[in-house]
Every structure is written in structure tokens, then in C-alpha cells.
């Protein structure tokens, strides 16, 4: 506690840096994954290829990706941009599968009905399929949030500042309180962002508030099963 | 003979599934338990093989209280057919039918022979033996379910809405098959359904249950029609809607049986 009181400024600063690294990656991966997921949902051939690619991407250890990515992008290893790109890739890897599943879960009857009442393909996507896929998309977003916020800390070992710096610094200087602060702060940040996404989901998708029991229990195993790459 | 003596099932949350049932199921006949959902008919059925234990009262098979019999041994001696067949998805049709005999320690070879014989009995082609349940139609799956229920040659066969999930045409076919089987095999069949027509078609004895697991009336189908106990029974068997009130009309010199709305039901043979 003492350590925290004396260093509250540093923790606050790292928290902001952490946010600045994770939020863009979370948003980018969410936005990019949805059209890819939709493609995987529509095209059987694309599904296999895309989901396999995502699986391969997700299997790559994060430290190795942080090191290897600059050889392709040209960014420096210690550049925050490098980290954001890597985190976005992981986010996409998680999110594409969920997005494909989310669109799969839209009842074919509903889709047919939308077409029958005269929606164009594009109109149907924006007005019917995307909103109805919403609850599952939000569930996927929550997994991405937790995994991204946690993964940012790994950047500390290669010199990218974040709450993870509290781990490396605390370890080198032998301060347990610093590491514990880092762990708690990281988890709190994930929790807050997660709560925000839930609230946003409720505001945007009011009809899903009392979702079917299957829907509710389905959101949890996703969160359970899809952990973060380390 | 199966006998229910003052059988009640109350769950810890206070719900009463079966409320004081006394009932005798005569041997080598078909008794149909019929009622709406929540009438405790399935619970009653499952008490016979101790899938459910009554909270009061006793179930006796040939005079022996089933509570004194090891449930696993009891279940292996009683055939059980359920809705959605309940087949093991990872085993072939043949292996599914062989399951109980193998559990009972029958040698593989004779279990196999018996299973092949049973497939024929229930009207399935031998070529289906090596298929998996997912490769069969709903009706075929139910046939396998019946074959599996008969595999250990039990005296008692419990059937829990076995034809509830198949389409009407296939259901009729399966119902007729069951009547044929019952004539040939003479098992003590206890059959659960919510369909009164199915109950009247298959049941030697029909037992109508009502929410809260109480017996409203039991008897032969004819008794139900001739003297329904109350309005609930009339409503359930359809007597109040004129479905069961038929009269004769002369058409082209033939005596045609019509219902209350004048729709023909058939021709009366001289």
C-alpha cells in the first residue's frame, strides 16, 4: 500500500499508456473482424481458410510475434505501433471465429423474412443481421478486451511501457507491492472495459437484455474457452 | 404385474409431480399413461425402473418392492424406449442394440446374433446394422430404440413418448408395428403419451392423469368414451367437441358414419 501511495502518479501514467495501447487494438480488431467473419459465414470455402488462418495466428506465442513482426512491418521492436499491430492481429484471430458464429446464429427464417419484406442485401446486413448478431459479437468483444489488456503487459519485457512495466521494474528491484499493483491494475482495467462493453451492448441491443437462456449460458463458455495468448 | 401403492413424488422445492397414485398394470397388456405436460406421467413411468424414487408409497413388480432391488440390475431387466431414441451417437446401430446384453454379460457372438434378429423383428434392414444413429431417419432411430429396449428380452417394456418426435405418417406406421409386436411378444408395456388418439389406439388400459400427478380416470378406451368421469375427461378425449359423437347417414344406399359436423368418418359394414 505504501508503495502505491508514493507512486500513484506513475501508476496513473502507465494506466493511460496501457489504455492508449489496448483500446485502439480492441476497436480495430472488432471492426476488421466483422466483415471477415461475415465472409466466413457466407462462403463455405472462405470459412475453412479464414478460420484456419486465425487458428494459426492465435497459436503464435506473443513474444515471438512481437519480435518477428517488425521484420515484416518495418516498425521498431520497441515501437508502440508494433505492439498495437500485433495485438490487433490477435484480436482479429479471436474475433473472426466469434463473428462467423454470431452471423450463423441469426435464424435463417428471420433472414428470409427480411429478404421477403424487401431488404436489399446491404440493407439486410445493417438492419437485420448485424443487430441480431450483436449479443454474440459483444460476447466475443469481451474476450478480446480481457485478452488484449492482459497481453499488453508482455510488451514490457521488450521495452514497451505499460502497466506491465510494473512487473519488470518490480521484479528487478524486488518490490512485491509493485508487481501486485500491476496485476490488480491490469485486471481492474480489463474489468472496467469489459463492463463498459456490456453496458454499450445493452444500450445498443435493448431487446437482448433478457436474452434466451441458451444465449446467456452460451456467452460464458466463449469467455471461458478463449483465453489469451501468452 | 406392476403395482403402484399410494405413490407420491414431491421435489424439495415443493412441486408435486405425482400425487398419491394407486394403479395396477396387468401383465402382458399395454397400459398407456396419458396426460398433459406436468401431469407426472413420465415421472410415474420412471419409478418402475427406479430412474425416480417415490417420496411416499411403493412400486411393486410381481409383488417385490423395487426399492429393495439394486437399480442397475433392475434397469437391465426392464426395456426402456425414449423420445429421440436416446441412442449412443458414437456406437453403431448393432452396438447400440447389443449394449444391454453385453452389460448383462452375454457373450459377444450371441448378443450379436440376437441383435441382428431384433433388427429384423422391428422391420429394419440388416444393412443398417453398421450405420451410426446420425445416418438414420427419425423413424429408423425409433425402431432401433425399440430393438434396444427388447434386446435383453425383458418382461416389461417402458416407452416414454417414443413416437413423439417423428412425423405423423411415420408415427402411424410405428404405432401399427408396435401393435403387431405386442401381439407377437406379449410384453407388459407401459407407454407414456400426451396424444389421446395414440392412447386409445395402443392401450388395453388407459390411465388419464392431470396436473399434480393425480389419476382422473382409468379403464379401457371404450369405457372412457361411454362414461367419461367428468368434464375434464370429456374435454381431453374430445367428446365435448363432437369428435367422438358419430351418427349414421344414408348415402347412396350405404350407411355412412359422420361426426357432429357432418364430416364422414367411414362406412358401416353390414
Amino acid at each position, binding site marked *: 500500500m505504501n508503495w502505491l501511495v508514493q507512486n500513484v502518479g506513475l501508476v496513473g501514467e502507465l494506466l493511460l499508456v496501457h489504455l492508449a495501447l489496448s483500446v485502439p487494438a480492441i476497436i480495430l480488431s472488432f471492426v476488421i473482424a466483422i466483415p471477415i467473419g461475415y465472409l466466413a459465414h457466407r462462403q463455405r470455402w472462405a470459412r475453412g481458410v479464414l478460420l484456419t488462418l486465425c487458428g494459426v495466428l492465435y497459436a503464435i506465442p506473443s513474444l515471438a510475434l512481437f519480435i518477428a513482426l517488425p521484420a515484416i512491418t518495418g516498425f521498431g521492436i520497441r515501437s508502440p505501433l508494433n505492439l498495437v499491430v500485433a495485438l490487433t492481429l490477435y484480436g482479429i484471430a479471436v474475433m473472426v471465429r466469434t463473428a462467423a*458464429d454470431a452471423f450463423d446464429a441469426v435464424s435463417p427464417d428471420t433472414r428470409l423474412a427480411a429478404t421477403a419484406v424487401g431488404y436489399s442485401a446491404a440493407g439486410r446486413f445493417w438492419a437485420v443481421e448485424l443487430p441480431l448478431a450483436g449479443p454474440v459479437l459483444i460476447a466475443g468483444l469481451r474476450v478480446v478486451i480481457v485478452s488484449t489488456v492482459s497481453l499488453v503487459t508482455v510488451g514490457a519485457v521488450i521495452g514497451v511501457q505499460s502497466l506491465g512495466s510494473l512487473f519488470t521494474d518490480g521484479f528487478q528491484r524486488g518490490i512485491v507491492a509493485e508487481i501486485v499493483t500491476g496485476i490488480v491494475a491490469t485486471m481492474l482495467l480489463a474489468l472496467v472495459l469489459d463492463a463498459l462493453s456490456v453496458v454499450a451492448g445493452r444500450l445498443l441491443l435493448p431487446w437482448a437484455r433478457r436474452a434466451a437462456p441458451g444465449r446467456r449460458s452460451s456467452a460464458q463458455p466463449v469467455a471461458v474457452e478463449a483465453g489469451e495468448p501468452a | 404385474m406392476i403395482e403402484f401403492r399410494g405413490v407420491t413424488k414431491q421435489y424439495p422445492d415443493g412441486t408435486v409431480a405425482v400425487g398419491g397414485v394407486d394403479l395396477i398394470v396387468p401383465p402382458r397388456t399395454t397400459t398407456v399413461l396419458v396426460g398433459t405436460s406436468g401431469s407426472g406421467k413420465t415421472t410415474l413411468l420412471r419409478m418402475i425402473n427406479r430412474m425416480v424414487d417415490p417420496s411416499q408409497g411403493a412400486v411393486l413388480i410381481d409383488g417385490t418392492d423395487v426399492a429393495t432391488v439394486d437399480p442397475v440390475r433392475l434397469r437391465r431387466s426392464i426395456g426402456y424406449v425414449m423420445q429421440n431414441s436416446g441412442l449412443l451417437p458414437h456406437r453403431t446401430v448393432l452396438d447400440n442394440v447389443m449394449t444391454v446384453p453385453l452389460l448383462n454379460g452375454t457373450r459377444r457372438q450371441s448378443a450379436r446374433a440376437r441383435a441382428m434378429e431384433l433388427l429384423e423383428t422391428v422391420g429394419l434392414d440388416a444393412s443398417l446394422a453398421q450405420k451410426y444413429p446420425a445416418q438414420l431417419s427419425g423413424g429408423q432411430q425409433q425402431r432401433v430404440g425399440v430393438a434396444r429396449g427388447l434386446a435383453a428380452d425383458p418382461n416389461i417394456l417402458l416407452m416414454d413418448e417414443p413416437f413423439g418426435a417423428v412425423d405423423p405418417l411415420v408415427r402411424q406406421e410405428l404405432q401399427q408395428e408396435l401393435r403387431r409386436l405386442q401381439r407377437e411378444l406379449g410384453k407388459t408395456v407401459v407407454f407414456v403419451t400426451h396424444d389421446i388418439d395414440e392412447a386409445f389406439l395402443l392401450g388395453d388400459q388407459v390411465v388419464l392423469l392431470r396436473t399434480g400427478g393425480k389419476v382422473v380416470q382409468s379403464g379401457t378406451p371404450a369405457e372412457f368414451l361411454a362414461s367419461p368421469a367428468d368434464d375434464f375427461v370429456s374435454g381431453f378425449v374430445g367428446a365435448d367437441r363432437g369428435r367422438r359423437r358419430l351418427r349414421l347417414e344414408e348415402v347412396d344406399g350405404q350407411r355412412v358414419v359422420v361426426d357432429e359436423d357432418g364430416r364422414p368418418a367411414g362406412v358401416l359394414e353390414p
Partner: protein
Amino acid sequence: MNLFAEAIAWLFGPDNWAGPSGITARLLQHLVVSAVVLVIAAVIALPVGGVIGHTGRGKQLAVMVSGGLRALPTLGVLTLFGLWLGIGLRAPVLALVILAIPPLLAGAYAGFESVDRRTIDAARAMGMRETQIVGKVELPIGLPIVVGGIRSAALQVIATAMLAAYLADVGLGRFIFEGLKTRDYAQMLGASLLVILLALVVDGAFALVQRLVTPTGVRLARSARTGGEPARKRTPARRTITEGNPV
């Protein structure tokens, strides 16, 4: 592409493979540590997950434990254990075991839970004992998902073992931390490519095992269900779990 050429050159440099801190030694360390951790974690988590999945009791606990543990930042856990237990293998091994438990627990639990309740009910009604239901019904049907959990855990362990090199003189991660100090990017990239290859091989191997342990009848049932349009209503989460999730 020059960078990659240098990395490949480093990977194929015979001098780099020999010695107590050569690639061979580091690779072996990485594999042995990962395997030991995986076995310990599996011995702890699989039976617990199986019991929870079979009985349905403690479900909330399992979800909370696996969910909560997963939100833990791995580097934080590693460094914390490093401070407590000092330099050496004990700290990373213990931390890795803890981090490997969630996917194993979730896999075992989900595997057993994935079996249709009606199938289990039918098995019981036929007269199978509880042990027979577990051995002849739940395990064969749920095994692909259990293996999926092991697959996730294996990838997690291989990845986190890279970070373990931050606090112990072990594994392929050493090349990266040494490379950071000496600014030897070829070595860092080479080691990264090697561990990526390792992860993909392990992932592929487990994917193969998953396929092999999927009973034919179950696979047919799955394709029959996902083949027709209406069957698509199957809860997406369930399918995600069934097909195993990369971690």
C-alpha cells in the same frame, strides 16, 4: 527479407546449436519444461473438470476459477512467483502450472458437459453404472473437447515458457532476452521463428489427435446437424468449444 535471411542463417549456423546454451539445449529445455508443466496441470485439472462436468456440481466455481485465472496477466504471475521463490526453475514451473489450469479445467468440464443429457439418461435407464456412464459414454463422446483443452493449454505453456526465460536461465526465450541486450536481431528473429514453428507443430499434432479421438458416429452427427440450414441455430459457443479453440 534480408532480416529473415540473417535469421535463417543464424538458425542454420552449426555453432549456434552446440553447447549448454545452444539451440539444441534450449529447445530441449523448452520442451521438457512445457511437458512437465502440462502433465502436472493436467493431473490436477482434468479430474476436477471431469467430475464437475459429470455431476454438474460446482459449475459456477469452475467458470469463475477458469475465467478469473485467465484474466491474470501471465507476466505478472511469473514475476511475482520469481520474487517469492527466487531465481531457478521452481517459480516459472509453478506459475506455468497455474496458468495452464484454466484451459484444461474448461476443456474437461465442457467435454463432459457437452454430452447430451438425454444420451446419459438413456444410458442410465439401460442399466449402466455411473463408472460405465463415464467410461463408455461421456469420455468417448467428450474426449475431443477435452483434448481441445489440452491443446489450448499446451500452446499457452509453450508461449508462457518464452517469458519464463525472463526470470530463469531456461528455454528458447533466452535467445530473445540475450538478443535484446546484444542487439542481435538475427538471433531474436531466428529464435522467434523456431518457437512459432514449435507452436504450430504442437497445435497441428493436437488437432490431429482431436480428429483421431472423435468417434465416427459423433462426427457424422455433427455434420448432419451443421449441414442443414435450420441446424445452424446450434449455439455458437457450443460449436466453438467442440471444434477446439486456439489459445
